[in-house]
């Protein structure tokens, strides 16, 4: 099975010179799909099956007094309910996107590169979800990051694409370093200092095995600071990949890549890897309660924060990108509150309806050649399939029953609501996430109305729109079906058991069906309200222009090019949203970007100053040697004894 995926990726890259390389890539991803579905079906028909294949990669130790038995790092695969679920997502969306690409990308140059990189990505992503230990997970994690970097920069002649690729790479790199630190910390705690009988961990380093219990407080002596820090580091890695605040900045700009890439990597699979990491960590390692609060806070805040930015954006892809950040926030929130399987369920449904939204948007862009919502209009007539698909995706996203998003989002809110009694600190984040339901429904239908309703395009220069070829329509139809149906799977007993077993493996009771009926009704009403507001403002070709009041105008000119558009808001409520949105943007642009640039300047300045030392004069160098010698003496004779005497020991 594993070999199949390796072959898919490698073969994909080898075939780059062929004219019909696209179809070859489709065929291979089709093969991957078959394998993925077989594995997924196998798990569903026999929930709770675990398959592990592994061999030792490198062996550390043994070292007397450090670790008596040595530690082996293994490479292997683990097929369990969680990874089977993820594999299903990766292969299904991967195959559909490959197919769609045949139509969408046929105008572009560099197609062999595109298919090779996409195939490599699919192989790496499959490897990631099948990895049976953290280190292997990290290797594939880096690999998908590299693929993402290449694919964002696919149009590398475009400076904005190249810089977006670089930004994505660097920002996620911050997360990756934290992730690696987290691995080391867990390693030092579990593999080395853990009590005997920790099974996979003590003997094998980082292995997830069936029956690994989260060792959390009970076995490791309370909420140790080290474990908390380790959890925060893992969260940092996840936040980088899943674009959570404050590392969210790269995802909207990543929309410079082809839309297909946005659908596959930046909506359905890779960005979800961060959530998957959190889920796996919470199931196999466990977080401390402080970690959980931080994760809930980050998730809840991001959910709302990103939704406010989606409210105002004129670019169809970026609206969906902000929406992705926001939805990932829901998943992080659920995992943080201890409902890993609930978060993964949302990941599952979200992958389908968000890929659907992106591919539908891609279809629109393909037809009219612009991403500006305000130039579009009236597209529902020439593009019936796309309009319907986008609407289904939108309804699923907004959480209208019976579409998929309703079931999973409702599960998150319901689960969180049930925790509020024991964790009152979750209240503000629950409210933020609840409020985001309204915004979500509003922004996605604002996009739909702007693009599809009305009599015709606002910009008459747009080319006459037409539906794409069949290879583009089929994925839309299939994903539409999944956007409706994937949520209903929850009613199939076997699927329920599957999720139960995934959670049960770690002894965490899964929470399903705790949704409060009243809460569900409230969130549906809220979502419907959002849609209604969108209709009121933007429906039927209407466009709202908010006259800038004098109070906000100077701030706005100071801050916003992003929001300074033909964007208007209703006078009820929306101005508050507007202010919050701008505040969010302020934080985004000044505090975070400022910090980043500050560091940049600091290093550049430091570097410049240090360079002056390199004078090239040999007498100077000799002086450094003598100065260094004196410094060594000071260290040896004064500083080190003093530190050791005061701090004690090493």
């Amino acid at each position: 099975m594993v070999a199949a995926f390796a072959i898919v990726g490698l073969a994909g890259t080898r075939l780059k010179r062929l004219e019909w390389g696209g179809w070859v890539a489709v065929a291979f991803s089709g093969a991957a799909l078959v394998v993925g579905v077989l594995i997924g079906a196998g798990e569903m028909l026999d929930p709770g099956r675990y398959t592990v294949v592994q061999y030792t990669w490198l062996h550390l130790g043994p070292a007397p007094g450090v670790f008596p038995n040595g530690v082996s790092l293994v490479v292997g695969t683990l097929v369990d309910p969680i990874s089977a679920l993820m594999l299903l997502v990766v292969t299904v969306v991967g195959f559909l996107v490959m197919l769609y690409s045949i139509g969408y990308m046929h105008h572009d140059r560099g197609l062999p590169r595109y298919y090779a990189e996409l195939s490599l990505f699919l192989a790496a992503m499959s490897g990631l979800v099948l990895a049976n230990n953290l280190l292997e997970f990290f290797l594939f994690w880096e690999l998908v990051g590299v693929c993402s970097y290449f694919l964002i920069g696919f149009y590398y002649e475009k400076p904005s694409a190249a810089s977006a690729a670089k930004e994505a790479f660097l920002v996620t790199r911050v997360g990756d370093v934290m992730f690696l630190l987290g691995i080391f910390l867990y390693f030092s705690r579990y593999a080395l200092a853990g009590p005997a009988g920790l099974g996979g961990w003590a003997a094998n380093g980082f292995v997830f095995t069936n029956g690994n219990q989260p060792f959390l407080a009970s076995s490791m002596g309370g909420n140790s600071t080290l474990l908390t820090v380790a959890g925060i580091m893992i969260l940092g890695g996840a936040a980088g990949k899943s674009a959570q605040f404050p590392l969210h900045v790269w995802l909207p700009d990543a929309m410079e890549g082809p839309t297909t890439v946005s659908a596959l990597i930046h909506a359905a699979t890779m960005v979800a890897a961060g959530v998957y990491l959190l889920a796996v960590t919470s199931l196999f390692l466990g977080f401390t309660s402080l970690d959980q609060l931080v994760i809930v806070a980050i998730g809840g805040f991001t959910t709302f924060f990103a939704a406010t930015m989606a409210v105002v954006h004129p670019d169809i892809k970026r609206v969906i990108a902000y929406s992705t950040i926001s939805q990932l926030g829901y998943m992080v929130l659920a995992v943080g509150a201890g409902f890993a399987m609930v978060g993964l369920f949302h990941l599952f449904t979200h992958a389908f309806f968000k890929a659907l939204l992106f591919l539908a948007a891609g279809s629109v862009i393909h037809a009219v050649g612009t991403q500006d919502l305000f130039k579009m209009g009236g597209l529902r007539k020439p593009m019936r399939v796309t309009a319907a698909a986008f609407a289904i995706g939108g309804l699923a996203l907004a959480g209208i029953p019976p579409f998929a998003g309703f079931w999973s989002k409702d599960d998150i809110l319901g689960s969180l609501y049930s925790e509020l009694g024991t964790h009152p600190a979750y209240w503000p984040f629950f409210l933020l996430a609840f409020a985001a339901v309204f915004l979500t429904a509003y922004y996605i239908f604002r996009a739909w109305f702007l693009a599809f309703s009305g009599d015709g395009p606002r910009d008459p220069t747009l080319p006459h729109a037409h539906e794409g070829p069949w290879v583009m329509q089929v994925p839309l139809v299939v994903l539409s079906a999944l956007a409706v149906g994937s949520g209903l799977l929850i009613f199939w007993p076997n699927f329920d058991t599957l999720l139960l077993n995934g959670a049960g493996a770690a002894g965490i009771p899964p929470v399903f069906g705790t949704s409060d009926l009243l809460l569900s009704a409230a969130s549906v009403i809220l979502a419907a309200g959002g849609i209604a507001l969108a209709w009121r403002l933007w429906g039927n070709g209407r466009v709202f222009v908010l006259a800038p009041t004098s109070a906000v105008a100077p701030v706005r000119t100071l801050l916003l090019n992003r929001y300074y558009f033909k964007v208007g808001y209703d006078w009820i409520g929306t101005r508050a949203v507007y202010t919050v949105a701008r505040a969010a943007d302020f934080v985004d642009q000044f505090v975070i970007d400022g910090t980043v640039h500050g560091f940049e300047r600091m290093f550049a300045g430091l570097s410049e100053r240090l360079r002056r030392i390199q004078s090239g004069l040999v007498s100077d160098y000799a002086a450094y040697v003598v100065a260094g010698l004196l410094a060594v003496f000071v260290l040896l004779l004064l500083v080190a004894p003093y530190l050791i005497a005061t701090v004690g020991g090493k």
Partner: protein
Amino acid sequence: MDVASFVLPFLPEVVLLAATLLIFLLDVLHVRRTEIVGALAVAGAAVALLLVVADLRFAPLASLATLPAGRIDAVGSPTALFAFTSLGLVFQGVFLIATLLVSLASVSRPSDERGAPIFFGLLLLATLGMLLVTVAADLIFLLLAVELTSISTYLLVAYTRRDPRSLEAAMKFYIIGALSTTLSFFGASLLYGAYGTTNLYAIRLAAGPVGFPVLVLLGYGFLIAGLAFKATLVPFHAWAVDVYDGAPTDVTAFLAGGSKKVGLFAFFLVFLAPILFVRTVGGGSPFTGAAVGLGPVFQLTLGVLAVLTMTVGNVLALLQKEMKRMLAYSSISQAGYMLIGITVGTAPAIAGATLQIFAHVFMKGAAFLVVGGVAALGIGPLVDDYRGLGTRRPLLSVAFALMLLSLAGVPLTIGFVSKFVLFSAAVQAQGFFVWLAVAGLLNSALSVFYYARVLKVMFFDPAPAAPADRGAVVGASGPSILPAGGLGYGRAVAIGLSAALIVLVGLYPQPVLGAIQLAAQHFVATGA
């Protein structure tokens, strides 16, 4: 004394010496073609390497329980000048691989180039000194062996005798080197004053220093300064960049890939005893007058040097525009990582550092070989001159990219494995060593910036307007260049081999890692 029993253990050294003398003899006889002397050097290094590998293979690495016999004598005697340790053997292997790669690549240089015998002869002579360092059991023997290497490398830097930049570099190298040697010997004499011996085992076995205890700290302080010159630790590194930049690039490859590790191994030898074996210096603390353990004092000092070295090296590398200087600073920062090994002083840490040193031969040594080859193609020295190399020389660029990625510690390369083993060993040791690992990780992240810049320039930037096919022109001008895409077969093989090993060992490190780990355990348990 039976001559055979004395000579046999030194067989690799004898082979190298013979090859060296043969090369110089041929020089006198006016046999100076690069191919001939080069082949001799390659053969000498290869035979010596085979002997070392055979020793490693059949020596009692397999079992810790068996006491080493034959060539390996892990337990030194308190009077011996030299002792054969398995870690020393591993380092001999590393040094010989570096020499082999450099001489292999240099065979591709123009066959009528002046000074070829001098180059290859000195290369082998320097290697001889390096091999002797690995068997040293006595401080004076150690410093003399280091000196043999140093003097050979001073001359190597200036062997062309033409380029004023090389001459200037050699002068700087020599002056700072002489100063450092003085410091080292002074330190050794102070230690002699404290212990009454210069034998490293005897020092280890001594119950405590005689006489004035601060002599010990002073002596080791001088030794740190003296050896840090060779290992390019900040702030004793300033010569390195000018010398790496000014020296002929193949010599730079040898300096960075080979001879610099001599300093690190000397650190291993000299500081293992004071770090591992708890001795207290009465009145060591100037504040309390209380006795202070020597080990932590040295660990803290070396730890500060390690962090300083990696940080300064990386930050300065960020700003370099010339490829050679950038790699030189990167080489300095790598020395900081390697120093972590002896600072932590546990067997896994020393194994990690040794693996890092092993990896560095293929990463940095071979990277300089690439730079030398690229210069021979008529491409300029700046990073920006590498624009579009990816399309013009795809294989060479991919090999170079692998080296840079490995230097950055990207997974699936040997550089990742070595950093992982090293840093996890530091984390295992707990205490402030965790911070060494953190500093190393942050530095690795920082270093990605400048390595990634080269990758971007090579693969994403378009080639300069006038495609520099001067390489072809040079090739047409004489027999000097060079099949295999203008690089020459020898250089192509050396580069290809390095790139392949980076990936192979990265994917399947166990054979190499296992041998190194066993050797490190020997070293810590029984060696000097």
